[in-house]
């Protein structure tokens, strides 16, 4: 077997070897770009956290322990730290920020903020490892395998080769195996290198490698099935390129249209307006009404909810919370709609294995829609923790000592 593989390697034509080298190069570049992206994201997060600490110190200078001043001016950094496989499909520069700052004011006006990204770069799509695996690997595989039999037929050698004893085991199998194996190697070696640099957990790296192999396996089966049909090599190449094109471009784009049409979402602009109306109506409503509604949510503060005629921060933050409460159901149904759209896209992936591989790679990288939604859910939970950390000071009236300021909940802890 080894000898047969070595023979097939020697028989591999120059353009085929060049193609493999280019694929390995592109996969390496994609991994290197991914690693650079991940490093920049981590640096972005670290810089924002450091700048935020300085900002908080400046606020402490004029807030003088007033929990209301802290609550109004202080921002808390939140981020999506890239995981150990983020380099496969990094999210830096996405519309969803990798790092943002939130206040304990109404969250609804903050949670949908976009990154100041260049939309033209997002439109083009990413050149990352997931892209190389989904688009370029299969294309090379098709080029290498489509004329496995027809190429020999057109050269007039097929009958002679097929009449060899054990032709299948000694000739066609090693020939197909070396070509698939080399395509796999061109992808897996850069992947492994990236994993080593990132210190990726072995089982996660193995999972990513298995996805790459699944993609290659799928395309190898499809290509060999078409190659087996007796037809001109050019026809086989055209059919396979057409399949590749349909699976990786046309069907996903058409399905995207269909899914968005099938699953309508509540109007986000209307939700934003309603949230604002509710918050600002707080200024005009009787303070007692606002406080009564707040106490219904937080009965623990019933004894501390009385207000006078003068402005008081606890009342201000009470109507901020009520503003979020008013649109909570709409906002949740919007997120549920997005999740339903993604679920349908994932279902399509089960029909089209290459799409599933791309989705799974994005899942491992933490840059898929599920990760966006999980980030939003974490953000809501963190915002609640922050608010509830400040309420005892706002309602109890005790000043925030520097230790209290420092002890506020930290994202991810």
């Amino acid at each position, binding site marked *: 077997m080894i000898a047969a593989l070595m023979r097939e390697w020697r028989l591999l034509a120059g353009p085929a070897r060049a193609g493999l080298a280019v694929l390995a190069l592109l996969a390496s570049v994609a991994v290197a*770009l991914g690693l650079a*992206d991940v490093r920049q994201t981590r640096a*972005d997060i670290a*810089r*924002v956290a450091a700048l935020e600490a300085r*900002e908080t110190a400046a606020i402490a200078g*004029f807030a003088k322990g007033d929990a209301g001043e802290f609550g109004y001016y202080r921002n808390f950094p939140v981020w999506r730290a890239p995981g150990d496989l983020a380099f496969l499909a990094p999210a*830096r*520069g*996405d*519309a*969803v*920020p990798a*790092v*943002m*700052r939130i206040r304990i004011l109404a969250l609804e006006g903050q949670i949908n*903020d*976009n990154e*100041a990204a*260049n*939309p*033209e770069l*997002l*439109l083009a*799509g990413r*050149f990352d490892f997931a*892209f190389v695996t989904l*688009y*370029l690997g299969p*294309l090379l595989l098709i080029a290498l395998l489509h004329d496995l039999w027809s190429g020999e037929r057109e050269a007039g050698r097929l009958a002679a080769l097929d009449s060899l004893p054990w032709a299948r085991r000694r000739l066609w199998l090693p020939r197909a195996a070396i070509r698939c194996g080399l395509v796999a190697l061109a992808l897996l070696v850069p992947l492994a290198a990236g994993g080593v640099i990132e210190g990726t957990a072995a089982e996660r790296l193995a999972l990513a490698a298995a996805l790459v192999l699944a993609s290659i396996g799928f395309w190898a089966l499809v290509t060999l099935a078409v190659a087996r049909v007796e037809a*001109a090599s*050019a026809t086989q190449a*055209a059919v396979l*390129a057409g399949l590749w094109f349909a699976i*990786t*471009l*046309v069907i*996903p*784009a*058409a399905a*995207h*249209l269909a*899914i*968005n049409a099938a699953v309508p*979402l509540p*109007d986000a*602009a*209307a939700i934003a*307006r309603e949230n*604002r109306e509710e918050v600002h109506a707080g200024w005009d409503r009787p303070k007692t009404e606002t406080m009564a509604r707040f106490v219904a949510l937080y009965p623990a503060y019933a004894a501390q909810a009385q207000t006078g*005629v003068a*402005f008081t921060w606890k009342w201000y933050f009470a109507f901020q919370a009520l503003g979020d409460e008013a649109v909570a159901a709409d906002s949740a149904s919007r997120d549920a709609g997005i999740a339903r*759209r*993604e679920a*349908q*896209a994932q279902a*399509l992936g089960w029909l089209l294995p290459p799409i599933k591989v791309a989705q799974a790679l*994005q899942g491992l990288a933490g840059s*898929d*829609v599920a990760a966006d939604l999980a980030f939003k859910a974490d953000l809501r939970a963190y915002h609640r923790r922050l608010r509830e950390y400040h309420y005892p000071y706002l309602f109890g009236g005790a000043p925030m000592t520097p230790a209290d300021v420092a002890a506020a909940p930290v994202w991810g802890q």
Partner: protein
Amino acid sequence: MSRVRTIAAAQLRLFVRSRLAVVALALLLMLSLIAAVTGAGQAARMAADRATAQAASNSAFANQPDRHPHRMVHYGTYALRPLGPLAAFDPGVDAFAGSLIFLEGHRQNATTLGAARESSGLIRFGQLAPAFVLRVLVPLLLVFVGFAMVVGERQSGLTTLQLSHGASLRDLIAGKALALGAVAGVAALPALGALGWAAAQAPADAGIALMMALAALLWLGLWVLAITLVSARAASAQSALLALVLGWAVVVVLVPRAAAGVAALAYPLPTKAETDLVIHDELRRMGDSHNPDDPHFAAFKAGLLRRYNVALVEDLPFNYRGALSAEGERLTSLLFARHAADTAAIQMRQHDLLALIGLASPAIGFAQASMAGAGTDLAGHIAFLDAAEAHRYRLIQSLNGLHTWQVKGAADAARNRDPIAERQSRISSQFWAQQRPFAHAGPSVAARMAGMLPGLAVMLVWAALLVWLLRRAGMGAEA
């Protein structure tokens, strides 16, 4: 010339007889019909939704009750990026650029919304709009239909036969190119029909729509020339197909993505969070409104007292608090404008780098030209951001003006503890209705046309190069 036409007609008959070509063309026509119809429906719905949201936001602002003007500074308003009629043909960056901004005092908010944040992950595979059909799908169809048209006949010995009957290789090549060009014209019909339909909705855009149609035909023309050239030069039909599919993958799929990756690394954009923090820091150094001894605001106050020749701010002929708000807004907005300009400059440098890389891959040039024409390009988005910020500043300063001149200083100072002063500090709701609502028509037709020129120029250079190579192919083999 008549011989060229005869050859083209014969080639077209061959195309029609080829099952693969007819099925592929039929599928493509169906697909682009779907893209055209859903694209038009979706764009019309989105444009209407945004117009409705803008109107709702405007009327909500105009109908607020009597209030203190600073409350309106925080109540704020919304700006929505309008969607031009040609977006149905090419939605461009629309899905990836937020379409809504909340405009309020003291802050320059991020955009929100955008289709990319409310769709499944499939949006990364591309959006099936007519422009996408023309840029991505039609060229590959032409490859499948035309790869063998010259080399196939040479392999089967037909070319020698035709040449021996007096046809020149040049006529042969020209005829084949003409036939493939006819296929390209048919394939482009639904997408161009969508463009025509969109232009019919907005006659003012007819001229630029025509330019966009020409850009699309030029782009497909490049493919007709390239396919004919490769088919004339290739050793076998199979190698012609492989070379063309590979070329398509590199030019249409690979290079635009790689270029975006390179541009992002070459000109890194700071995150919005970092920019905001830097602005806060710079602001504290310019003038810290929280610091009662801040030199900038102390000088501002002293200047006003001197100009009006009074000793106390209470003696000024207007409300000092309003003037102070206006001065604070002026300072923050200076920084907002500077940093927004920096961000836009980095993004435009990224755009220019893409255009430069587009010399190697005219797909970039075509995409940029098409988006520019539709008004859905990066420049259009930046123009919207600038218009929104200009509106924000004008509105907030107008409200600060009302605060300064319409609210009595004494009532203003006591409003947080005295209900009567609070009532006196409110001003009539009629002032809100007098504020000019946000209106942004998008980039002008002239600006959009100018934005198309670089992409068109790149495609013309490529066309000249391909024609030259094709002429050499026609003569070289003849000699």
